[in-house]
């Protein structure tokens, strides 16, 4: 199975993906079972910036601070984390702007709706995740069509 899979999808990293995903799930489980809250990044960032209520500030800010800390620790322990960013900083800024508006308007992103909501079989989260996946795929297809892929 594995050689066949790697021939069809030469760039895929299924094992790292599965183990990394399991870590993400464990992280969200600690937030849920320990603190009784959803590990939704956009919501907790909004709370950290005092743009929304709900979660106590110290909990939201501690979670957000952990994200870069965890990435740094992993790169120290296991070596460089590959990353290829779009060459245009302007594009990244615009993408960030749209992401900020969209995630707050839609009450969640890949973590809150995708990981926490879908595993709870929340109809809102299932619909939200299907919507941003479809819209993301349409966006990449349109960018490719315009010859602006990177």
């Amino acid at each position, binding site marked *: 199975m594995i050689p066949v899979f790697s021939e069809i999808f030469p760039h895929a990293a299924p094992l790292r993906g599965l183990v990394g995903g399991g870590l993400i799930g464990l992280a969200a489980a600690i937030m849920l079972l320990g603190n009784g809250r959803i590990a939704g990044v956009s919501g907790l*960032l909004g709370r950290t910036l005092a743009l929304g209520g709900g979660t106590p500030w110290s909990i939201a800010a501690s979670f957000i601070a952990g994200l870069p800390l965890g990435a740094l620790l992993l790169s120290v322990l296991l070596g460089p984390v590959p990353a290829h960013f779009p060459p245009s900083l302007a594009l990244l800024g615009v993408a960030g702007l749209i992401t900020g508006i969209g995630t707050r308007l839609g009450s969640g992103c890949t973590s809150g709706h995708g990981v926490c909501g879908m595993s709870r079989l929340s109809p809102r989260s299932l619909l939200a995740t299907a919507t941003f996946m479809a819209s993301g795929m349409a966006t990449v297809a349109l960018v490719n069509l315009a010859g602006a892929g990177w």
Partner: protein
Amino acid sequence: MSARPLLALLSGTLFGAGLALSGMMDPSRVREFLDVGGAWDPTLAFVMGGALIVMALAWGLQRRMLKPVAAERFELPGTRLIDARLIGGSALFGIGWGLGGLCPGPALASLALNPLPAAVFVAGMVLGMIVLRLFDRA
């Protein structure tokens, strides 16, 4: 420091490590997942699968618990409303995700490893959140 912020810091740290290990901090890999018409990279589906398996078990435990380990009660989203905000906001988010190959978690985690491009994305994201807060009274 009480247990709750420490648990949140542990959760965020494991979350960031998981993002780094899984390849989700590589915008080109995320972009290739969304590029279903091109050389499709299914890694993101494995990441989501791994996270969903663990979280499905956690929800099973949660239903048997009277209260969380370190807090008085579970504070979970209770709304079941499906409206234009949910759909429109999610559709907008997908556009940003497809353009940059980053969602909020990997963007914040990337501040540690690729500070310049990550900071530009995060600055845009924070600005977007503030703009929505200013013009949205709902």
